[in-house]
């Protein structure tokens, strides 16, 4: 204990000094770990994006400037060609695919999730059972669900075509995963199936925070149920909805496994994550793939920061 002057200058209580010391001590292992497993690899990835690294030589990779991002080559014939991620149509196609997928699937998941959450919020027999059952798609590993759906969507042997044929919705069998007209639809459908539980349960948690007397008051006042939904439920559940949407959106924009397994060869579904991994490991262009993954990282970073700013997330958690 330090000696204390008598004149009443502000003095930090030993308790708080000790607590702050302990806090940093407690945080150090986590921070060091995150630096090693996240910050260091990230910085190396970014370095690779400015280098000529390949799988065979990444230890002695040479600085390459921004050539992975953009470079101009003048042919002997005098024709000028531009190369690099920033002018690569395959990359921008992947960006387009990713956002198309993200926006369509998250919208669909939100609407359906809201519907399912409203059902689960009502009182009915077997509610607990239904709530447990809808968790099943969420519990199935993505790879497994991709395989199960791959089997169900198989063009010749799949049950999905069989059902649609029996219902006379389609007149001939469709190659859902191979036909580029349908592959994006397929990916959206399977992803929605898999993620609906997460969405529905997050929204349900928001719904359950609405006090019941709000509804009772509305019922006593004779408000039409649709009006109750539009004017009471939706505004009250909006904060939970906003958070769920952004979480899902960030998740959707980095989608990899579903596409990689279900529709590996379709340029209609190739996403940013798929194409950059493909360049790194399948085409042995580690530098070029890193440039793509770096751009992907920047896009997501901007989305996260915009989310925290616009959503006014209270991170301090002050009481």
């Amino acid at each position, binding site marked *: *204990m*330090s000696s*204390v002057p*008598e004149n*009443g*200058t*502000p*003095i*930090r*209580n*030993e*308790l*708080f000094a*000790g607590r702050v010391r302990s806090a940093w001590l407690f945080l150090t292992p986590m921070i060091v770990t995150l630096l090693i497993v996240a910050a260091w690899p990230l910085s190396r990835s970014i370095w690779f994006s400015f280098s000529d690294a390949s799988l065979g030589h990444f230890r002695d990779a040479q600085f390459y400037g921004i050539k992975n991002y953009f470079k101009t080559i003048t042919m002997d014939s005098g024709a000028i060609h531009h190369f690099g991620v920033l002018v690569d149509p395959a990359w921008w196609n992947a960006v387009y695919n990713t956002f198309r997928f993200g926006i369509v699937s998250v919208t669909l998941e939100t609407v359906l999730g809201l519907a399912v959450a409203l059902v689960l919020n009502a009182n009915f027999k077997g509610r607990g059972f239904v709530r447990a059952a809808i968790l099943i798609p969420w519990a199935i590993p993505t790879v497994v669900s991709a395989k199960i759906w791959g089997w169900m969507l198989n063009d010749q042997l799949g049950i999905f075509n069989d059902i649609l044929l029996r219902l006379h919705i389609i007149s001939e069998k469709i190659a859902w995963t191979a036909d580029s007209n349908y592959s994006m639809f397929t990916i959206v459908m399977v992803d929605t199936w898999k993620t609906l539980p997460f969405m529905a349960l997050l929204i349900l948690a928001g719904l359950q925070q609405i006090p019941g007397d709000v509804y009772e008051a509305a019922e006593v006042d004779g408000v039409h149920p649709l009006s109750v939904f539009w004017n009471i439920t939706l505004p009250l559940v909006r904060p939970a909805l906003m958070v769920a949407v952004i979480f899902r959106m960030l998740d959707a924009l980095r989608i990899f496994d579903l596409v990689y397994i279900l529709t590996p060869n379709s340029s209609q579904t190739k996403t940013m994550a798929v194409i950059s991994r493909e360049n790194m490991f399948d085409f042995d262009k580690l530098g070029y793939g890193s440039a793509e993954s770096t751009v992907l990282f920047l896009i997501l970073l901007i989305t996260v920061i915009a989310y925290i700013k616009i959503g006014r997330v209270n991170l301090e958690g002050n009481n």
Partner: protein
Amino acid sequence: MANISIKNVTKSFGAVKVIKGVDLEIKSGEFMVFVGPSGCGKSTMLRLIAGLEDITSGTIAFEGKVVNALAPSDRGIAMVFQSYALYPHMTVYQNMAFGIKLGGATKEEVEKRVRIAAEMLQLTPYLDRLPKQLSGGQRQRVAIGRAIVRDPKVFLFDEPLSNLDAALRVATRLEIAKLHHSMNNVTMIYVTHDQVEAMTLADRICVLRDGYIEQVGTPLELYEKPNNLFVAGFIGSPKMNFLNGKFAAPYKANSIGVRSEHLEFVAKGGWPGKVIHAEKMGSDTYSFVDLGMTEPAIIRETGTSRHGVDAKVSLAPMKDKVHRFAVDGKSI
């Protein structure tokens, strides 16, 4: 056994100043009650004394030794919290033993001190129970027991009765009073917003408002000689009757205050009014008399009242029982 000397203490949370300069001497072995409306800073004062908050400026000294920089556990204090704050996963015994075990007491020592405290508070049969298996009153006693076991020089209570029902509150109040008598060397500081608790328990009361001390004194001093309008209105139940304008003018004051038991019905010459309501308590009757002010005056009579509702009456204060206040609210 510690006198506490608080000198020019202030406390700010960010830009908000909660304690705005407090000077107070608490004598060794005294039972001091901090009372005031919510937001007056009384709990903050207690937490500053406990060391659970940093002091922004000023000093707090125990027995002449400044404790500003000492952690709570080094101050020789024990505290009873509003929510009891019992460790839910520990038995009553473990709850009471936790602190002194950490302090390095031997097993026999721990055992002995817990047994004595448990005996004192009639908790011996419950030593092996978990807090959730106890009633509210029993939990409260465990919280007190946990404090006793620490053998503190200063005992701090933060609104300890506010979670109890009315009957239990009276009983526990008595327990705490007895505790104070049996531990007559221990300084106790007790925070409450309930002036009845303050009046019944305190050796001295410190009335706080808005980060300042309004008055410090024995319960009767505060009751009989309030420094200002605020203290006069805060202490005593029912509230003191305040009158101004033409009522106060003859007393050469901006306003005057008369307690309900110091008003009487007079045949003539008093303040004319009409009885609008009467609360018959059996032992006493409180009559609400409309004198033409915004609030009716309340007058207390022993037993039953002669005057029914709607009766035209005349009121007068007893001699020398009128409190006079200046424009700034100070007593004259």
